[in-house]
């Protein structure tokens, strides 16, 4: 188990190292190199509606998350179960609001507030 976990950690660390090192290359790249790369793809970045600006000036194609609920965006099952059972730590449940009585005070058209109601 320990060996497996170490392997997993190592792979993640390797990816981070590669991303950091080559990410710096992108940061240091010049405008000329960028234009050259765009030309290789047949993109004219000087034109207004260039495909290079997808995701920047106009939205990219919709992803999975637009249509499906992904596991990472779901609530954790522990707090969901806590909520369902009403255990401490869960946000207080809101009681359904009672409907106001339909009876109206004759002649006035509006029920007076409770604190102003006269008691006999």
């Amino acid at each position, binding site marked *: 188990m320990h060996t497996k976990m170490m392997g997993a950690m190592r792979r993640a660390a390797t*990816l981070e190292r590669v991303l950091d090192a*080559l990410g710096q290359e992108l940061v240091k790249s010049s405008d000329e190199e960028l234009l050259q790369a765009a030309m290789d793809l047949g993109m004219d970045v000087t034109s207004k509606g260039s495909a290079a600006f997808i995701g920047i000036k106009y939205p990219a194609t919709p992803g999975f998350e637009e249509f499906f609920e992904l596991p990472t965006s779901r609530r954790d099952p522990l707090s969901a179960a806590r909520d369902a059972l009403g255990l401490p730590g869960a946000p207080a449940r809101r009681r359904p609001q009672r409907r106001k009585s339909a009876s109206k005070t004759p002649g006035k058209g509006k029920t007076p507030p409770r604190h102003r109601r006269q008691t006999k």
Partner: protein
Amino acid sequence: MRMRRFPTLVDTRVIRPSEAALSLGLVTELELLRLKAIARWYARGLPPDLSWEDLLQEALTRVLVGSRRAAVGVTAVAFLAGVMRSLRSEHWRRIEKGARPRRATADRPRAERASPEVIDWASGPERALLAQDELNAIRRLFAKDPAASIILSGLERGLTAVQIRLAAAMTETEYASARKRMRRLLLREGLTCTPR
């Protein structure tokens, strides 16, 4: 018969942070394109609920609202790249924190009870799988260039530029031109809109 029109997924009345940054002159169009390439690069190996677009727009938002402030002398691209990198780490931290089941206080060992904020940052198998997939994809990206593949395997092992050059018996010029080819390939990949 008229077809029913579905509402669009994106509300065009909302100004995107990238558009706001462009209008305010924080970044130029070419800088935005470079940032797109960087965002696509840093989004590698992340779970699918966080896209490169989210990384880029969130980084720009943080700069626009003032929660991240650039130091004097740092270029906009370098600064925003740093913000995106930290957002990436932040996302992993959030996932790992949420995924760890919390034990009841009575079940926790005494040492853990004394410091309840101690969090185990160990990587899960999902992260390792994602990392392995991405490493394979990056290797495939440079597969046609032998010099670039050597440099990549050196970077994977954590070697410095000098160590890679010495190990591969490359001259300084050969190394520099291989890095230039890699940069161009990365920019080309970064400008596309294809999902990886």
